[in-house]
């Protein structure tokens, strides 16, 4: 590790000892889970590199951007529109929330029965180990589930730059009006932060950048419909996760490059898994880095994940933003339209999600659906039961898993997932 990074981390206020520990655990998990995979596409080397530098080079880049006058905005949710951030001369990054850290500290501020993702958000702050959070000029919280909504009140006591965005809970006209008002308020907040007035040309350009990123990942999704599957679910998940960290233009190029390779793999019938391997659709809660536990368990049974119905996956990346408008107002309408379609479980009712799961089941030629719910995540755990019923009524095999970031249930999960895969064979 270069001294430059250590100085940078120190300047950011990280706890170097704890941070070393985190990087060591992360590095080991990556070796055991990612590098142990067979028949990976060569172009995954880019994403391996990104992960190896996730707290190094990428942070250095962000610090350089800051020095050049750009602002960094940290977010925890796919409802925070990247188009608006980019148009206001700011870079949007996803903040760390995928591992348990400093849990004793966390439980002084949050009830024990809070979901792992929210606890992790606090753990990374309290443990002083997330350089993205420390580099952020603005942290956006969003009122999605009750857990997050109330947790942001407490987070506000430990960070100085929290901005809270309200999110509607129903897909109605008043719901859409609320989202629109909140996106305008966010636009203003970004403008105040960076001192840049967002104009139509800037917004149009940023819509194009983000759309290109989405188009590239849509291309990746569609290549996973092949049998044999040219890329493992773990690798595809990593690409989905890097979506939230990387420079958007470079990310787009890198995804397109791997897609070129995947196309030639499909032509040569080279798979990451053998032809006929049971095909799994994962559906449910977001999977933040380094929460690879369940996908890893699934793919070590010989089944392959071909799609993620998840915020870190198709729920987050589905649909482009219409860029045909020529005024800020028209383009803002398009942004609102695009995000208002997200079928997050905080919405009631939420029929789009059911339709999307069934649609993905058909398109990806899925054999079985594994529903992933984070323990104590009320919206997704509640929705898991009707999802299971809806799928069972169509004779689609489904396994409902409720877990967290700890490794204590790996044995039981393995047995359950293996038994489910045995049923599919």
């Amino acid at each position, binding site marked *: 590790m270069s001294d430059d990074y250590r100085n940078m981390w120190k300047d950011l206020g990280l706890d170097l000892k704890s941070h070393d520990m985190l990087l060591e655990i992360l590095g080991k998990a990556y070796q055991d889970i990612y590098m142990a995979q067979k028949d990976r596409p060569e172009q995954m080397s880019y994403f391996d590199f990104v992960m190896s530098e996730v707290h190094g080079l990428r942070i250095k880049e962000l610090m350089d951007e800051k020095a050049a006058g750009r602002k960094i905005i940290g977010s925890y949710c796919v409802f925070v529109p990247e188009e608006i951030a980019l148009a206001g001369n700011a870079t949007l990054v996803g903040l760390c929330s995928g591992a348990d850290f400093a849990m004793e500290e966390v439980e002084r501020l949050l009830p024990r029965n809070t979901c792992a993702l929210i606890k992790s958000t606090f753990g990374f702050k309290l443990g002083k180990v997330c350089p993205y959070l420390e580099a952020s000029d603005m942290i956006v919280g969003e009122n999605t589930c009750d857990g997050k909504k109330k947790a942001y009140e407490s987070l506000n006591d430990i960070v100085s730059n929290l901005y809270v965005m309200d999110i509607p809970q129903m897909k109605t006209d008043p719901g859409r009006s609320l989202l629109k008002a909140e996106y305008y308020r966010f636009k203003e907040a970004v403008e105040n932060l960076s001192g840049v007035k967002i104009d139509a040309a800037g917004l149009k350009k940023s819509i194009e950048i983000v759309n290109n990123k989405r188009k590239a990942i849509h291309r990746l999704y569609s290549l996973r419909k092949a049998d044999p599957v040219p890329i493992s679910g773990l690798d595809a998940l990593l690409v989905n996760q890097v979506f939230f960290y990387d420079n958007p233009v470079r990310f787009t190029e890198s995804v397109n490059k791997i897609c070129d390779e995947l196309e030639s793999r499909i032509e040569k019938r080279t798979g990451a898994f053998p032809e006929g391997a049971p095909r799994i659709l994962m559906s449910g809660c977001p999977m933040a880095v380094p929460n690879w536990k369940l996908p890893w368990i699934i793919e070590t049974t010989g089944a392959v994940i071909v799609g993620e119905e998840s915020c870190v996956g198709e729920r987050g990346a589905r649909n482009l933003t219409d860029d045909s408008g020529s005024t800020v107002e028209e383009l803002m309408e398009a942004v609102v339209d695009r995000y208002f379609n997200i079928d997050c479980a905080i919405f009631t009712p939420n029929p789009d999600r059911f339709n999307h799961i069934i649609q993905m089941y058909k398109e990806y030629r899925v054999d079985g659906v594994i529903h992933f719910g984070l323990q104590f995540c009320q919206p997704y755990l509640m929705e898991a039961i009707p999802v299971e019923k809806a799928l069972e009524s169509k004779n689609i095999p489904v396994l409902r898993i*409720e*877990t967290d970031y700890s490794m*204590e*249930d790996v*044995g*039981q*999960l*393995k*047995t*359950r997932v*293996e*038994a489910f895969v*045995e*049923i599919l064979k």
Partner: protein
Amino acid sequence: MYCAGIDIGSRTIELVVLKNREIVEKRQVDTGFDPMTRARELLDGVEYERIFATGYGRNLFEITFDAPTITEIKAYGVGAGSLFQKVGTILDIGGQDTKAIALNNDGKITKFEMNDRCAAGTGKFLEIMSRTLGYTIDQFGAEALKATKNLQINSMCTVFAESEVTSLVAKGEDPKEIALGLHRSVVRRAVGMLKRVSVGNDIVFAGGVAKNPCIRRLLEETLKRQVLVPEDPQMIGALGAALLAGENK
């Protein structure tokens, strides 16, 4: 051809050897602290051509003995299905897991439920509770059957239940009554799991806890129907594994 199945559970290891689908050998040992040494001892002098492993130690066995593995869920499905033609639901309560498995008319597994992490309401729970009350595991169910009251034990967690039991003992409650309350709590949990997979056709109760007469009776009372228990309920997983070893030539 001789085909074997080995079920490496958290408390015991079972071995079944079949010749033309007939049992020619069955053995059992405690798992202890070194399951592979125990497995090797169990296999000592046993003749077989193929062996399949199941149970929580199956992956270790796979590495050590280079044998194929199947989950307990499939093993119990196949094992119980071979003994009872019309089985629709299997309840397996073992040392650290409880499983409810639903089969369709062709004997294929359609759905299952399993406790996700702690050993609440499993054999281990009953074992620790019997010790707290001063019974051997064999006495426990028989003594509970002599109780008459409807004492409620609320805790499912072994640690909490133990302190609940201690405070009931301190109140002078009859150990038999406490034992019955504990059995009821195990059955409540198991029935909940059975209902989630839906109960069709015959119900087969297997795993070590199926040897407990009180659990059997309470299950039948709660479900208001007969529950079938195989002669050797702990051997069902090993039997299923042995049958599968014979199928996959």
